[in-house]
C-alpha cells in the first residue's frame, strides 16, 4: 500500500493588539455590558509591543526558529524572559499589525477596506520589501480614502475602524445595508481569516519553492462562516485564498469541524491524493479575530501581559508519495464516533487507543503525540489548565491501564511522548497541526519514527448537538520504497499466474475429454 506524504508545512503569526481591543469578543461583550469597567480602562496598558511578541519564546517555536523541547528548560514566565527572536522563521513569519492592515486591503476584492493616504503610503514600501506580493497586488494600496471620510463612516456605524495606537488609519465597510452576515464586523472577521490564510499560503509557496500552478486543490479549515443571509456559511474561503496566491489551477472547498477542522481537512486531502483524484492538495487556515484577548480579563487580574494578541495561520501540502517525505498512514485513523461517549477516557480510547490497537501498535510505539497544543502560559492563569499536559496525562493513563508503562512512569510519559504547548489560543490553530512542521523535520533527520496528530472539536458550541468530536492520524517515516509499483507488479504476477493456471486447466480438461 502506498501513502500520501506531507511535502511541506508553513506557519505564520500576526501581531494584532488593536484588533484585540476592537474585535476580541471578551472585550466587545464587556463593552456592551460594562462599558465603564476597570478592566476595559486598564487593558490597553497590558498590550505588548511587536518586538515583545517576536521575542516571545513560544512564538519563535511556532514559526520554527526554536524546537518545542527548548521551552522545557527555558525560564518561566516566558513573557518575562525574552529570547533574541526574529520576525522571519524557518516555517514562516510574524507580521506586524500595520502591514496586516495593508494585507487586508490587498486581499479585498470588493473595495470594502479603506485606508488613509498617509497610512497607505507608509506601509506600501514595508510590504513591498517582504517580496511576497506582486506589484499589481500592491497597487491596491494606491487607492485610498481621506481620513475625514473614513471618520464619518465609522461614526455613522457604516464601517468598523482600523486603529494603530488609538489612531484611526482605515476602516472596513459593511457589504450590505441590512444583511447582518455582511455587516462590517462579519466582513472584517472573514477578511482577517482570508488575509492570514493568504499570508501563510504565500509563505508555504515561497519557503518551499512550490510552483503555485502545481497546486490542484485547497482545503480551508478555519471556523468562519462565509456567506450572506440566504446561505450563511456557504463558503468558499479556500478558493478565495488560492486566488490571492495565483494558484490558478486549483479549486477548493471549506471543511468545518470547530477546532478539529484541520485534522479532518488533512484526512480529506490524504484521501484525495491516495485515490489519485488530485496530486497536490494544500490544507490551510488563517486565524480568528474574535478569539483575541479571550482570557485577557484573567491576564489583567494576574498583572501579566494580555498574551492572546496573535492571529495564527498554518498551511500543509499533501502530495503523492515521493519516497522521501514522511507519509500519512491512511490505514490508521482514529475517530470519535457518535456512540463513543464524551468522558475524557472515552475520547482518548476512541481517537488514540482504538486505532493503534486495531493496527497492532502500542501507545508507546508513537514517539510523540500532538494533541491540542495551546500555550499553557495563556490558559493556566485563566483557570483553563495546561491543555496539552492534561491530554498527555490521559494518554499516559491509558498506557498504564493497558500495561504498556508502569504507573510510576506516568509523569515521565508527557516528557517522553509530548511537547510543551506553544500555540496561540486561536481555536482550530493549536489543534495538533502546529507540530506537523517539527515532526516532518525530526522524521527526515532520523530522530523520530512516527507521530500522532490529534484534532478535537467542541461541536456543542453551535447548539446543534452536545457531542464532542475528535480525529487522529499518524505521520510516519517514509520507507523509501515505491510500494505502489511493487503492489501493482505483485497483482500483475498473480493475474498472470491465474491466467496460466486457467489455460493449463482447459488443456487438461480437453485432453481428458471433459
Amino acid at each position, binding site marked *: 500500500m502506498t501513502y500520501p506524504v506531507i511535502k511541506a508545512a508553513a506557519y505564520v503569526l500576526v501581531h494584532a493588539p488593536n484588533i484585540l481591543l476592537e474585535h476580541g469578543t471578551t472585550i466587545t461583550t464587556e463593552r456592551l455590558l460594562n462599558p465603564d469597567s476597570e478592566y476595559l480602562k486598564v487593558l490597553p496598558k497590558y498590550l505588548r509591543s511587536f518586538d515583545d511578541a517576536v521575542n516571545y519564546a513560544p512564538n519563535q517555536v511556532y514559526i520554527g526558529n526554536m524546537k518545542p523541547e527548548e521551552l522545557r528548560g527555558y525560564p518561566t514566565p516566558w513573557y518575562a524572559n525574552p529570547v533574541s527572536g526574529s520576525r522571519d522563521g524557518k516555517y514562516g513569519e510574524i507580521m506586524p499589525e500595520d502591514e496586516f492592515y495593508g494585507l487586508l486591503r490587498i486581499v479585498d476584492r470588493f473595495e470594502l477596506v479603506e485606508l488613509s493616504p498617509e497610512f497607505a503610503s507608509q506601509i506600501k514600501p514595508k510590504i513591498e520589501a517582504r517580496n511576497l506580493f506582486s506589484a499589481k497586488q500592491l497597487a491596491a494600496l494606491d487607492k485610498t480614502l481621506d481620513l475625514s471620510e473614513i471618520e464619518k463612516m465609522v461614526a455613522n456605524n457604516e464601517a468598523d475602524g482600523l486603529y494603530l495606537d488609538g489612531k484611526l488609519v482605515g476602516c472596513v465597510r459593511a457589504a450590505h445595508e441590512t444583511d447582518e452576515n455582511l455587516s462590517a464586523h462579519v466582513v472584517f472577521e472573514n477578511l482577517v481569516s482570508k488575509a492570514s490564510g493568504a499570508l501563510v499560503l504565500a509563505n508555504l509557496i515561497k519557503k518551499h519553492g512550490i510552483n503555485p500552478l502545481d497546486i490542484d486543490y485547497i482545503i480551508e479549515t478555519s471556523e468562519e462562516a462565509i456567506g450572506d443571509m440566504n446561505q450563511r456559511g456557504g463558503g468558499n474561503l479556500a478558493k478565495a485564498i488560492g486566488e490571492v496566491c495565483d494558484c490558478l489551477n486549483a479549486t477548493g472547498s471549506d471543511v468545518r469541524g470547530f477546532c478539529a477542522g484541520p485534522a479532518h481537512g488533512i484526512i480529506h486531502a490524504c484521501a484525495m491524493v491516495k485515490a489519485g483524484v488530485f496530486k497536490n492538495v494544500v490544507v490551510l487556515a488563517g486565524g480568528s479575530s474574535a478569539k483575541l484577548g479571550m482570557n485577557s480579563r484573567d491576564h489583567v487580574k494576574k498583572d501579566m501581559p494580555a498574551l492572546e494578541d496573535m492571529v495564527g495561520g498554518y498551511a500543509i501540502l499533501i502530495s503523492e508519495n515521493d519516497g522521501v517525505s514522511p507519509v500519512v498512514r491512511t490505514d490508521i485513523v482514529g475517530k470519535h464516533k457518535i456512540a463513543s461517549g464524551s468522558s475524557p477516557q472515552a475520547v482518548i480510547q476512541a481517537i488514540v487507543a482504538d486505532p493503534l490497537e486495531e493496527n497492532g501498535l502500542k501507545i508507546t510505539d508513537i514517539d510523540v503525540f500532538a494533541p491540542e497544543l495551546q500555550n499553557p502560559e495563556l490558559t493556566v492563569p485563566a483557570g483553563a489548565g495546561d491543555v496539552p499536559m*492534561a491530554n498527555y496525562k490521559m494518554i499516559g493513563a491509558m498506557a498504564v491501564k493497558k500495561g504498556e508503562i508502569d504507573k510510576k512512569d506516568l509523569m515521565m510519559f508527557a516528557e517522553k511522548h509530548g511537547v510543551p504547548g506553544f500555540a496561540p489560543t486561536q481555536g482550530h490553530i493549536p489543534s495538533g497541526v502546529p507540530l506537523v512542521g517539527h515532526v516532518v523535520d525530526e522524521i527526515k533527520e532520523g530522530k523520530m519514527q512516527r507521530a500522532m496528530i490529534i484534532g478535537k472539536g467542541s461541536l456543542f458550541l453551535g447548539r446543534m448537538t452536545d457531542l464532542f468530536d475528535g480525529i487522529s492520524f499518524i505521520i510516519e517515516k517514509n520507507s523509501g520504497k515505491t510500494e505502489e509499483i511493487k503492489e501493482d507488479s505483485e497483482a500483475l504476477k498473480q493475474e498472470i499466474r491465474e491466467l496460466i493456471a486457467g489455460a493449463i486447466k482447459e488443456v487438461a480438461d480437453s485432453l481428458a475429454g471433459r
Partner: protein
Amino acid sequence: MDKSFFENKKICILGDRDGIPGPAIAACMETIGGEIIFTSTECFV
C-alpha cells in the same frame, strides 16, 4: 459529601471542554439524584 445533599435539589452543570464535559458530569449526577435542569460545556481555548 453525603449523597442526600442532592435530594430535591435542582442542578445546573457547567462542564469544561478540556476538563470534564457537561454530559459526563450529568451521567454521574443522574446516579446520585436531584433534578438536572441545565447542562452545558464551555470552551476557553
